[in-house]
């Protein structure tokens, strides 16, 4: 029964905090929302542990009738099974920690209650998504998290770039939702229900059936799964529908950690796992899932290697890791996909929050070219971030011990290879390349940020801090984020390049400070305890989540843990264990190569990256400009939409319909206008009366006659 509290406490807290807004000060809304989340978190772990120990059974808790239209019925209800339990602990734990972290990170923010209300609202929607017992409630959560994401990306609504990013996130997600909605319609048409258990139960009976779609006939399950998968692609930022995720970094960093790394973006993976018995029925759909995932994981990793904005690097990293989860699912290893989702939530949230801590220390500077040498200044952030990096790059020794990502990523790669299909092999190789790049960009981030000499003096943000310090104390570091006095400084982040940014490392821009040590006279400070505590707790997860839960999620015989909540292939587990030795060692090898390359390029020989980039020329530019997706979509979707809108309006509506329609007719009766104008100044009731009497008279004449 505690599930009611888990789900609805955050909603209640959100409503109260939102309505109270600033009238009760900042502390009450913060305590309400954070308290609600810690209670929810405290109640979630026992549920998860009950499923771990096998003492809990899947159950559904009804809430309220929703819609009953003919045979289409769906109600509000909370479903709790193993899959939900996993998501519950992920969501509530990360959310609670992010709430806590935000006490520090947002402490200068005048709109704090609104921020916390949004965070809790998001958590509620996400919980509704993972507890959904029918597809429509899942869609409710799906769109609900979209709304919260929109609000949080646009939290600093004064910034034009934030407003634009918020719209982009919502609209691109809606493209995915189009697929999701059609998928639900199709599912209802085929199965006569939108209840998830009933659909999953009936799914195997529909193998081999065909369905009409857009005038052609296709395999039923393929159509349904692919439509639903379009939704998953949107929410989980897969190749083609990923463009919103990097822009979503306009939101405050705690938001990026919670929504755009740990929880919301994994909803697509969750959906595919939840509906795994459906996807299993269509080999084509599985292959598409695997290929899209593999391509995304590769493509996003390439971009991650070239970006300078610390948050964007992590954003592309997230995109890439989601790709891993999808190709695991597409290879049939749903358990491994969920395992990676689980571990990724901890270490990616950790990485984002660490990045937030760095940004906090660096006065909202996000460009890594202006970092450097921060290791000694913010040691706790450094060590926790290192833990996160060890986790994401998958450091570990096969068969002995390793960090979280080591277990889950290796499980995915082995499953892809072990599945033995061509698609699996393709995914495996893409995954290996991506793992190399993951290691490279992650260590690159660490080296650029924490090692080398300080390069802070070239940062405008830092300069502001230094100048402010003379005026009114250097703690006023959130000021430009919400545009009190110099919003322009922050707006620069909408662009990929600072106007003043040096073309590359090592090239000196104008040196504002006269300290000669690259610090520009700036002294970064370690973040307060409320921010460090979540980092430390998440570090534990990043270190330990792998070896503690490895057995549970992906080992032989552990189909029992899942209890049918997703499809679990024993034979795939066997295949994973049977892969050749080089496959087992490949991830470790590429991880090491990536590490050494990053070390060489960013510590040993800092001129090397620029030389390579120059050598690659247009290839580097293409990757640096994010494979030109934004430019492409602007050209083929956004601009034509506005152009067409103008044409339809001016030419079609005004030029044709009006001209030959009412205006033409009006010209004919123009003479009548003189009479009508009299009426305008006359008495309306007399006019109305005449009209009515005329009508009645006419009708009765016709009838009587």
């Amino acid at each position: 029964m505690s599930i009611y509290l888990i789900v609805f406490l955050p909603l209640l807290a959100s409503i109260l905090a939102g309505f109270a807004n600033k009238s009760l000060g900042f502390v009450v809304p913060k305590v309400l929302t954070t308290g609600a989340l810690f209670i929810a978190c405290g109640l979630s772990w026992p549920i998860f542990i009950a499923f771990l120990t096998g003492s809990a059974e899947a159950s559904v808790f009804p809430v309220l009738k929703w819609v009953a239209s003919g045979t289409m019925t769906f109600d509000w209800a909370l479903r709790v099974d193993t899959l939900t339990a996993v998501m519950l602990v992920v969501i509530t734990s990360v959310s609670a920690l992010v709430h806590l972290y935000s006490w520090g990170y947002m402490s200068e923010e005048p709109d704090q209650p609104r921020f916390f209300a949004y965070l809790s609202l998001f958590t509620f929607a996400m919980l509704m998504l993972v507890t959904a017992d029918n597809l429509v409630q899942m869609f409710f959560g799906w769109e609900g998290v979209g709304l919260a994401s929109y609000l949080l990306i646009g939290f600093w609504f004064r910034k034009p770039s934030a407003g634009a990013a918020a719209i982009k996130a919502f609209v691109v997600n809606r493209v995915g939702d189009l697929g999701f909605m059609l998928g639900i319609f199709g599912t209802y048409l085929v199965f006569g229900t939108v209840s998830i258990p009933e659909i999953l139960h009936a799914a195997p009976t529909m193998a081999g059936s065909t369905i009409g779609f857009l005038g052609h006939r296709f395999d039923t399950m393929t159509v349904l799964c692919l439509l639903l998968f379009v939704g998953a692609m949107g929410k989980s930022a897969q190749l083609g529908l990923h463009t919103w995720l990097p822009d979503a970094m306009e939101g405050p960093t705690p938001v990026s950690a919670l929504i755009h790394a740990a929880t919301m973006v994994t909803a697509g993976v969750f959906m595919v796992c939840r509906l795994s018995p459906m996807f299993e029925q269509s080999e084509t759909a599985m292959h598409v899932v695997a290929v899209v995932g593999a391509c995304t994981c590769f493509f996003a990793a390439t971009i991650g290697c070239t970006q300078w904005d610390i948050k964007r690097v992590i954003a592309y990293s997230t995109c890439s890791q989601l790709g891993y989860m999808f190709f695991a699912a597409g290879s049939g290893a749903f358990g491994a996909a969920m395992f990676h989702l689980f571990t990724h939530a901890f270490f990616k949230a950790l990485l984002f929050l660490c990045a937030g801590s760095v940004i906090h220390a660096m006065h909202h500077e996000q460009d890594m070219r202006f970092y450097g040498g921060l290791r000694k200044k913010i040691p706790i952030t450094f060590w926790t971030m290192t833990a996160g990096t060890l986790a994401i790059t998958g450091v570990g020794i096969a068969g002995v011990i390793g960090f979280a990502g080591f277990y889950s990523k290796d499980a995915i790669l082995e499953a892809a290879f072990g599945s033995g299909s061509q698609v699996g092999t393709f995914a495996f190789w893409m995954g290996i390349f991506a793992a190399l790049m993951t290691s490279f960009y992650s260590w690159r981030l660490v080296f650029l940020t924490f090692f080398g000499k300080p390069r802070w003096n070239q940062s405008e943000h830092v300069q502001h801090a230094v100048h402010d310090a003379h005026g009114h104390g250097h703690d006023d570091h959130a000021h430009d984020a919400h545009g009190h006095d110099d919003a322009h400084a922050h707006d620069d982040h909408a662009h990929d390049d600072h106007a003043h940014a040096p073309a590359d490392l090592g090239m000196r821009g104008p040196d504002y400070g006269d300290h000669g040590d690259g610090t520009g006279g700036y002294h970064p400070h370690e973040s307060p305890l409320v921010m460090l505590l979540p980092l430390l707790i998440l570090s534990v997860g990043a270190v330990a989540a792998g070896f503690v839960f490895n057995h549970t999620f992906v080992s032989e015989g552990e189909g029992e843990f899942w209890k049918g909540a997703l499809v679990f292939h024993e034979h795939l587990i066997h295949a994973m264990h049977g892969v050749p030795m080089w496959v087992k060692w490949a991830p470790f090898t590429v991880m090491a190569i990536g590490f050494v390359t990053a070390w060489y390029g960013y510590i040993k020989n800092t001129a090397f990256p620029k030389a390579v980039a120059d050598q690659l020329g247009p290839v580097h530019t293409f990757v640096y400009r994010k494979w030109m997706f934004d430019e492409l979509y602007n050209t083929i979707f956004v601009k034509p939409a506005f152009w067409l809108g103008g044409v339809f309006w001016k030419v079609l509506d005004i030029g044709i319909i009006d001209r030959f329609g009412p205006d033409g007719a009006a010209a004919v009766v123009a003479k009548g206008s003189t009479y009508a104008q009299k009426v305008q100044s006359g008495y309306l009731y007399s006019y109305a009366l005449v009209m009515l009497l005329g009508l009645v008279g006419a009708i009765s004449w016709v009838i009587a006659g």
Partner: protein
Amino acid sequence: MTGFPILSLMLLVPLLGALACLFLEAKAARTVALLATLVDLVLGIALWMNFDVGGAQWQFTERLNIFSGFTYALGIDGIALLLIMLSVFLMPICIGASRSIEKRVGEYMAAFLLVEVFMLGVFMAQDMYLFYMFFEAGLIPMYLIIGIWGGADRIYASYKFFLYTLLGSVLMLVAMLWMVHTAGTSDIPTLMAYDFDPHVQTWLWLAFFASFAVKMPMWPVHTWLPAAHVQAPTGGSVILAGVLLKMGGYGFIRFSLPMFPEASVYFGPLVWGLSMAAVVITSLIALVQSDMKKLIAYSSVAHMAIVTIGLFAFNVQGLEGSMLVMLSHGLVAGALFLCVGVIYDRLHTREISRYGGLAINMPRYAVFFLLFTMASIGLPGTSGFVGEFLSLGGIYQVSTWTALICTTGIILGAAYMLYLYRRVVFGEQKNADAAAMPDLDARELAMVIPLALAALWMGVYPESFIAPMRADIAALDARLARAKPAGDSAPTPGKAKPAHEEAAAHGGSH
């Protein structure tokens, strides 16, 4: 006449109010109008309370033979009940929104109350001629509201409105006369069960279509709507979007579908085509508007297209969905026009670019505007979603192409509404006068809060609104069953795999 004539009373109250307003000075007229509409709201609630869900199809019937062939017959079913509730709910809000009217207040209020009388009459009438009278008469006060109290271009707008809607109706009148002669009665319930020759149905259907399509409005006979909305005063826009646009949908569901089932199915693809065109074209047009009211007016056309595809899906989900879209649109589009009116009253411009950063000085306004924006783009949990979802789900069963094209409306809708919201509410305060505008006052809150609550109610627990019409929709569905199209997506039964193969379905693939 059976029982207490509550329906007649609901017509009489605003009628008397209208007459009184004509002879009262401004302040008293406002009070009388507000009182009259509130009394009607109370009567409406009583009506809903006493409506026997699952009881007789026609309830609260009243009959009075006036002269040969013309009967004063009232009565409602669940469908009419819901639209009546929508009307009486919106009317006090419209009166409240008319604070800025200073010219000829008494006559303005009288016109509004007359609109209410005629609208309610449309939904209550059980006699075809009575229906026609109310249906056409409703035009007159609306025409005057636009023409007298409208904006700068009001004369043109009112002509356009009048021409479109009246010319469409002439054909309908002819068809009605023919029907009454053939069937020998003007009683609507009887005609709803009367089987006209399918060949004749096509002509009759087209004649009715001419009128309803304009009222709806469907593309391409929609161009009166943006003009009318832009010029109408706020209250006029609310009632126009809120209730007058529902008369077309009501006409389809009351006349076209049950009286001409074969013709409706025959012309289904035509309606789908026009609806698809409407969703895409008007949504794109909405995207490029710089006038707030025009933007919302175009979005109304797109929403009404969802109504028509729901109606012409010929199944329960589609029909109930389209009813819910109508109700939701009534609330939400009304609320959005109200939101525009709120800032128009302060700055006297509808230019989007004159605003910006309103979240800073009008935070409450920003919240409500956001809620209605989300309801308009069909966020689950708000009223917009349930109807849209059911309508689109209904049409999917009949035509996947139509479903696909019309579902793009959720993308385009999000684009133009959020783009509007961003330009008005987000961003910096570019204009000093916009930045100085005060937040919602008590009167304005009293108008938007009920709308917001209703929109959420309908989104979270739509059962309250589905229950009254369930039996009527089922009856209509049964009536349409004989002509129902097969649908282009029918699945073939699957060949269930043997158990062992099923377990190895994936393993076997490599």
